[in-house]
Structures are given as C-alpha cells and as structure tokens.
C-alpha cells in the first residue's frame, strides 16, 4: 500500500509538470498579450509596450518564460502582472473566502441527496419517485444563473436575506459571535443555490446505486431472515451502496476553484473563482497559470485520496 502511494505520488508529480507546461504553452500561444490589453490608451507609447514586455519577460522565448514562472512560484516571489503584488498570499486569502462556501455547499449537497435518493429508490415508480426524477432533471437542465436570479427575487422579498458579499458593512467592531452569525447569514443563499444542481445529480446517483443494491441476493436474504425493514435498508443495503460515493469525496476537491465562477459572480463573493475571472479579464498570466496549476494539483490529489479511501473501505481492493 505504501509503495503504491509513493509510486502514484511520483507519477502524479510528473503529470503535474506536464500539465503546467501544457497550460503555460496554451496561454502564451493564444493571441492577446497583457501588454495588448490597453491598446486604445493614447498615453501608451511603443516604448512603454517594450518596457512592459521586458519587465514581464514577455520578450523572451516561451521555455525561458516557463522557467521564470516556475522559479518564481517555488521561491514565492511570483508577482501579479496587474498590481505587482505577490500571487500566492493573494490566492491564500481568496481561498479562505471560498472555503466556507465550498464546505457549506458540500454539506448541504451530501445531507440532502441521500434521504431524497433513498426514498426515491424505495418507492420506485411511485408519484414521489417520478416527481423527484423530473425535478432533478429540471434542476440539471436549468442554467444556474437563471434559477439563481429568480430565486433571489423571491427570497429577498420573503425572508430579507442578504445576497451580496461576505459580511455586512460596519460589523467589524461587533462581538465575535455576532460576526460569525453574520457570516453564516450571508452564506445561506449562495451555498444553497450552488447546492441545488449538486443535489439533483447526487440524488440520482444515490437512487441508481440503491436500486442496484436492493436487487442483490444478500438483501433478499436479510429480508428472508425476518429483519425489520429499516435494518435491511440502512444496515445492509445502504452500507454497500455507499462504496462508490467514497470515491466521489476525493473528486469534490477541484470544485473549490472551477465550480464556483458563476455563483461567486452572481453573489459578489470574493473567492477563488472570481479571482480567476478577474485574472482572465486582465490577462494576468502568473495568476491564471498558478490557479490552473493549483486546480490540476487538487484534481490529482482528489484522485489519489479517492483511490486510498476506496482501498480503506473496500477490503476486496488491493492497491498494487
């Protein structure tokens, strides 16, 4: 097992280098340099462009630019093109903003999907099941921002919940508890909106998985020996149906960055997705590359975590 982990980590690190080279190449080969953002500015002269290109190493060959980026990233000296501030602390700060939203969304998704999916599987073909199915497909098929806008209108009218930003202005002097409650209050709407699609997808998986397991022989045996229904469903069926979901835990990780652009934009939530969006708008190459790199690292880490979790949970799996 340890050998497997060590070998995978080495492989994944190699893969990560390849990914960073590819994304570096893609971004630098695409037209539109940072120096070309502000071409309409009459104050911008040709020598300024040359100066900017030199300052950002944009006049050097691509492979040297890659070396510069990697060196700066490793020494922590990587500066944003936009404002000259270090990239990594900035990303960390935004990460701390994104984390509560991500955690809250994940908790809502995982706690809501299981009861819905299990009920649908147990009452297969009933009105509840068909209704839940149609609703789930509807939620998957609706553009996220369309639904959010509609629900925002309704929620603001009915519950007076805040829908913008992290916290209420002017609460810095309040007690810690009040600030915490304020943060949670602001989290409520963005996280439940972002969770809706997740619930729709995951509850479908739960339903399919439960149906698969409920048809197994050991469930019939459990029923045949007279166990009560709850014991059969939750003790025998659900425990086995849970196996594939263990792997999905790991795959949640990359959602931290890429899954949130739209929702952070709607709710003006200063997180990683919005940071990436702003970086793309200003062609802030170091920021885009670093975010891409972190997202790829998170994906690889997620796959590794899910492999290990699977081996821990399912004794039939041997990692070799």
């Amino acid at each position, binding site marked *: 097992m340890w050998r497997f982990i060590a070998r995978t980590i080495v492989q994944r690190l190699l893969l990560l280098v390849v*990914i960073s080279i590819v*994304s570096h190449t*893609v971004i630098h080969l695409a037209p539109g340099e940072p120096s070309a953002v502000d071409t309409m500015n009459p104050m911008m002269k040709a020598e300024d462009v040359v100066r900017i290109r030199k300052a950002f190493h944009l006049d050097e060959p691509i492979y040297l630019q890659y070396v510069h980026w990697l060196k700066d990233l490793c020494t922590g000296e990587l500066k944003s093109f936009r404002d000259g501030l270090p990239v990594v602390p900035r990303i960390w700060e935004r990460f701390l903003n994104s984390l509560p939203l991500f955690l809250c969304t994940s908790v809502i998704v995982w706690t809501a999907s299981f009861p819905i999916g299990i009920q649908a599987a147990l009452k297969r073909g009933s009105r509840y099941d068909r209704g839940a199915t149609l609703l789930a497909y509807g939620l998957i098929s609706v553009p996220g921002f*369309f639904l959010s806008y509609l629900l925002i209108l309704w929620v603001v009218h009915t519950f007076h919940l805040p829908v913008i930003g992290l916290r209420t202005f002017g609460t810095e002097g309040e007690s810690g508890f009040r600030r915490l409650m304020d943060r949670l209050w602001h989290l409520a709407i963005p996280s439940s909106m972002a969770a809706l699609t997740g619930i729709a997808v995951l509850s479908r998986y739960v339903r399919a998985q439960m149906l698969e397991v409920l048809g197994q022989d050991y469930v019939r045996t459990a029923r045949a020996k007279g166990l009560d229904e709850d014991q059969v469903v939750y003790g025998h069926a659900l425990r086995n149906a849970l196996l594939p979901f263990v792997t999905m835990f790991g795959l949640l990780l990359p959602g931290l960055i890429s899954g949130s652009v739209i929702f952070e934009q709607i709710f003006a939530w200063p997180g990683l997705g919005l940071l990436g969006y702003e970086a793309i708008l200003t062609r802030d190459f170091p920021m885009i590359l670093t975010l891409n790199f972190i997202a790829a690292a998170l994906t690889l880490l997620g796959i590794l975590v899910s492999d290990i979790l699977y081996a821990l949970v399912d004794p039939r799996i041997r990692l070799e």
Partner: protein
Amino acid sequence: MSIPVEPVTPELAPGAARAAHADAEALGMAETPARALWRAFRRDRLAMLGLYVLLASLVVALLGKLLTGFWVVFDPAAVRLPDKLLPPLSAASSAIGKDLLPPFHYYPFGTDELGRNVFARMLQGAFVSLSVGIVAVGISLVIGVTVGGLAGFYGQRKLGPISVDSLLMRFTDVVLCFPTFFLILTVVALLPPSIYNIMIVIGITSWMSTARFVRAECLALREQDFITAATALGLPPWRILFRHMIPNAMAPVLVSATINVAHAILTESALSFLGFGVRPPYATWGNILADGRSYIFDAPWLFLIPGAAILVVVLAFNLVGEGLRDALNPKLRKRVG
C-alpha cells in the same frame, strides 16, 4: 412489501447479445438491435416526451434559420425605438414604418430595449444555440472516437519505450486534470470572440469521456470472434477499426453525446453570462438571457422566455440521453420487460 426478485443475469457482453440475437433469428423472430432499442426506448414516456420536444426544437431551429436568414419574414435586427420593452402579445404602434412592421403587426414575445422583436431573435437564436451544442459535440466525438479507437485497437504497439495505449490514455488523463470551465473561459477570453471559436473550444475540452468509453469497448471487442474473422479475411486494420469495431462501440458514446449537447448549450449560456459568449449580431438563447437580466424588473419576459426555452431544450436532451442509457442497458431492459 413485495420485492421484485430478478433472476441473476450475468453481465451481457456485446458478443453475447449478438449471440442471443442470432438465436432469436433462428427462431424466426428477427429483431434488429436498433429495433429492440427503439422498443425499449418507446416504453419510457418521459424519454419519448423528450424526443418529441427535441424534434420540435430542431424543426423550429431550421425554420428559424429559414425565416430570419434566407427569406426574412421575422427580422431579428430591425430596431424600432418607439416600440421598446413592449410586453408579449402587444400590437405594433402606429409610429412604426411600413417596412419595419412585424408580421401581423404583433410581437408574440414582446420587444427588447431596442424595440427588436424578441420572437424573431429567439427564432434566430434557436439555430445558433442548437448548432453550438451539436457542432461542439461533433468535434468532441471525432477527437474522442479517434483517440479511444486508436488506443483500444493499436494499444499494444510500441512507440519507443511506451505503448500507444498508455501514451494516449496518459494524454487523456492530462486533459482531464484541467479545470474545464476555467480553461474554456481562459481560451475564449484570449481568442478573438467568434461563434466558431466557442464551438471548437467546447469540443476540445469535452472529448475525454468519449475516448475512455470507446477504448473500453474496443478492448472488449478486439477479443470477439467476428474481429478474428475479419482479420482472417485479410481486411486492412483501418477497415476493421472503422467498419467493424467503432460502429459496435457507439452505444455508450451515443448516450454521452446526447447529454453532452445539453452540457454544451448550458456552457454557452454560462459564457454569455460572464460576457464571453457569442457576440452580437448573432442572437443566441444564452446572450438574450444574459442581456435580459438587466431588465428583470421592467421587462421580465426578456429573461423568462429565453431561460424557459433553454430549460425545455436542455431537459429534452437530458431525458432522451437518460432514456437511451436505460434502453441500452440489457439488465434494466429485462427488468422493465
């Protein structure tokens, strides 16, 4: 509570299904696989509903292209400032000149902030939105089938130290590790904005699952007797690959392609929302929706109509895809039948 106890059916390999089919033919109840699929699919009422909606929207898209592009009955670009922000089903005012009047002097879906006929724009957008989805998926299918087919068929061949299979599949893994939406956003923001770039970028970032399906199917098919027979007949490898293996590996690909079209349409609308979508003068449902959100209080129809249209069409694609998946699953087919 009665439990439906089904007989334990072993996983049916494609070959076994074919063998069963041959048996059925011998018994004089010939049914082609396509017909069996259709029979199973038809039982699913939701999927059939989806199929009807899908066909209707294809007809609307083609009609829309015809009526707004070639034989202009509905002019999506006509600006009528006196008639701006009229609600649906209102009549054109008398201030409108004769050549700008909408057909029958009515705006079925109202007008937008420039007095353009929303119905005409939706008609034009139907073709653009559907073609973004379909072309993007077409591109991803070509890449995915090629990569998956080559990896599955020529897998053992060595290129230097590594085999073709591991080379192609590691490449697929690399692409899978990119945060897709983020990558699309980056490339679309950097490239000159055009509808073709959006199709290409969505296509290039969504072929990975297809490649994996095709490879898995090809690996299984390679061991089948009919491939051995084809080899024994002396057919060239490319012919075996493209005429005999890939058509047999298309079933799961069909499912994921249908669902990917739905995804692509949603991605296009998300890009429009962030301001990177298809640029005017092209109207797509995505950018009508994204523009309409500024008028959500004054002219809610500008937001609700395109949103509902996207919901219905994407839902139809998803339902058809899921229906196909169920119909193709031999275990489930038994259970239903």
